[in-house]
């Protein structure tokens, strides 16, 4: 009997990418593959909990101090209140520097690990290329689990800009500042690539499309019309990559009936306790029930209203499926889950492609954007009321959800990935 093909998934250290890959890996496993996960240091247990073998890259440098994240948040929270263009120098460029550090730091260990594992395919869900993957001697797949804007095109707003599709003037201004600000990180990264035998990338880019396969988590309802359409042989659009979780039992609310609203801002957002406190206080005045994801910070909250329930972890896809509205940060995973279950999104973006998704939600009639730094209780209540009562939007979202569920992105992704395994193209394809 032939050995099961080994598919090495290498998601970046974020829950969004990690859980997208879990969804695809489970579909690949169901088709006879042996998915394994390569993890950044500290991202322990996530994949093992889903039954997958984990391989950890060794940590680079000293372990973070206990208050590392508190410092991180203190440093960056003010930046998240800026407009996308003003985040370029304060948040985006320093973050690219850190991402380049990650890539350089991981290279040797990753190369050694890939040589040992000898995978049939590597699946990279990240925003930066690791040269060891290009040299692993097997096909590699790029998963674009950010918004579609990550793959640049003249007709698509720039990545992380939050610009409307027809804002040509804004586009030129944003790109000029972006390219200038990220140039030092990009120069450094290109020198690293050159040292590893890879060609330099164009200005502003840190990850090339795979010559084998690229998977974009961009449901049809959000897609842009591109000036240069992507080659369907190498680029596959997925209707999300939503995984299944177990059922969620609604908690008992001491008070409150009405629509069910799920609130989750990702792991970074959960650390913004001040914003969350303000929202929770505002929820007391909204006739709805709120399930709020507070990550590891439950003890930071007090006087929680009777129509609000806090937890540190939810089986998110199952909860979104029950909700009438999903308030989130514009993470592509969250947005796709909302669409997959026909739920409108109220997006308060922090950074990165959250801005792009927030704008796109308004453009496509799938949700609404609210500025995280400038809202009143009245604004929030009005936005919630508008979204839960918009019957036309709900009908359109329900119809779209039916279409998405009829063509699960995880299945298509698994089939396209397995088609890259030598000798399986016909069977999988």
């Amino acid at each position, binding site marked *: 009997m032939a050995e099961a093909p080994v598919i090495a998934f290498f998601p970046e*250290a974020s829950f969004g990418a990690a859980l997208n890959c879990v969804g695809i890996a489970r579909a690949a496993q169901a088709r006879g593959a042996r998915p394994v996960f390569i993890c950044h240091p500290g991202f322990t247990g996530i994949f093992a909990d889903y039954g997958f073998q984990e391989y950890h890259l060794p940590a680079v440098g000293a372990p973070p101090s206990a208050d590392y994240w508190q410092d991180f948040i203190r440093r960056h929270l003010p930046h998240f209140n800026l407009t996308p263009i003003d985040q370029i120098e304060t948040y985006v460029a320093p973050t690219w520097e850190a991402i380049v550090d990650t890539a350089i730091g991981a290279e040797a260990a990753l190369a050694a690990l890939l040589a040992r594992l000898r995978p049939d395919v590597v699946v990279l869900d990240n925003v930066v290329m690791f040269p060891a993957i290009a040299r692993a001697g097997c096909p590699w797949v790029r998963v674009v689990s950010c918004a579609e804007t990550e793959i640049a095109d003249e007709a698509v707003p720039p990545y992380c800009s939050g610009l409307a599709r027809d804002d040509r003037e804004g586009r030129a201004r944003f790109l000029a500042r972006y390219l200038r600000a990220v140039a030092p990180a990009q120069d450094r990264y290109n020198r690293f690539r050159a040292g590893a035998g890879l060609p330099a990338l164009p200005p502003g880019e840190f990850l090339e499309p795979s010559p084998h396969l690229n998977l974009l988590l961009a449901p049809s309802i959000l897609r842009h019309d591109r000036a240069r359409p992507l080659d369907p042989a190498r680029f596959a659009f997925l209707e999300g990559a939503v995984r299944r979780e177990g059922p969620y*039992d609604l908690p008992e609310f001491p008070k409150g009936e009405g629509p069910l609203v799920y609130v989750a801002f990702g792991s970074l957002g959960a650390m913004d306790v001040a914003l969350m406190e303000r929202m929770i206080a505002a929820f007391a005045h909204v006739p709805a029930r709120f399930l709020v994801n507070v*990550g590891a910070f439950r*003890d930071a*909250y007090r006087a929680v209203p009777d129509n609000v329930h806090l937890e540190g972890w939810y*089986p998110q896809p199952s909860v979104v499926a029950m909700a009438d509205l999903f308030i989130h940060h514009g993470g592509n995973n969250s947005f796709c889950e909302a669409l997959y279950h026909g739920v409108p999104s109220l997006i308060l973006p922090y950074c990165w492609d959250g801005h792009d998704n927030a704008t796109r939600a308004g453009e496509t009639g799938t949700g609404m954007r609210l500025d995280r730094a400038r809202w009143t209780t009245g604004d929030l209540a009005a936005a919630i009321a508008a979204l839960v009562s918009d019957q036309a939007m709900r009908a359109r979202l329900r119809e779209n959800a039916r279409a998405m569920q009829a063509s699960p992105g995880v299945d298509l992704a698994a089939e396209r990935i397995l088609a890259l395994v030598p000798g399986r193209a016909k069977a999988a394809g």
Partner: protein
Amino acid sequence: MARSASPNRQARPRSSPRASHLDLAQRILDLARARGMGAGAHLPEQVLATACNVSRTPVRAALDLLVDQGLAEHESSSGYRLAAGFSPASTISGPLPDAAEADLARRILRDRAARRLDETVTVGELIRRYGAARSAVGKALARLAEDGLVTRAPGQSWVFAALPDAPESQADSYEFRLMLEPAALTAPGFRLDPDRAAALRRAMVAFLAEPDDRLDPRAFQTLDAAFHGLIARGAANRFVADALGQHLRLRELPGAVVRANVVRLRQAMQEHLGILDQMEAGRFDVAADLLCVHLRLSRSQRPQAANRGAPPLFGLTYRVGGDG
């Protein structure tokens, strides 16, 4: 000869019986019937404590309950006996636990777990919040205090104990259990209740037969508590049994509810069955080793935060709402 309550009964005011005492009283009656004991038969506390795998304190409370029911009698010189009117058909007819009081205690805990109540609360605050009488609030607090969930503070204030519902307290909880649960299994005198073990196996196998989308986390939590309770109750050392029993009750509180994905729930249940296999075969040392592995996997670390674009280092914390 004067027939009276036990010294223990005379010394402390009686609150409504707790469900656990009722359960134990029922077991004592079952035991009496199974052994063919008739009216007037002696009910030795230590024998009952050993038979029921509990310490003498709850046995005494359960016997007092039977006295209240007229099913047993107590003599200060010779202890407890089945009452003259006892027959094999005798049953406990009440009083049942005060439902309103239990419900109020449950709501207080629910709201503390949800951080609707602060760590310190006053009786007045609870009266206003729940629209309850002062006496009802007092009884509910007394019930919670009996389980070590609140303690009285100066004035009319009460302070909640730390619940295993935050990462740090969950980490402490796993450490505590890693110290005691395997030790309970390997210490001389561990006794496995074969009937409970068999019933639990059937329930765990049935749980695993459910499809993913019907794998109920609450059912998991019930079985998880029953499985670890089986180990706690089997401990020969009564203090170990009591400490583990009390800690397991903490884990059943709202907010400490299991939140893990279905794959991990299945893994954890399979681990339970593997441990049970060894326990039923009498290989308690192997069972203890597997139990250590199970607890360590259940407390596996998770990143506290990580995000696209965040720097490559990130803090660690324990899983929020682990199983085990």
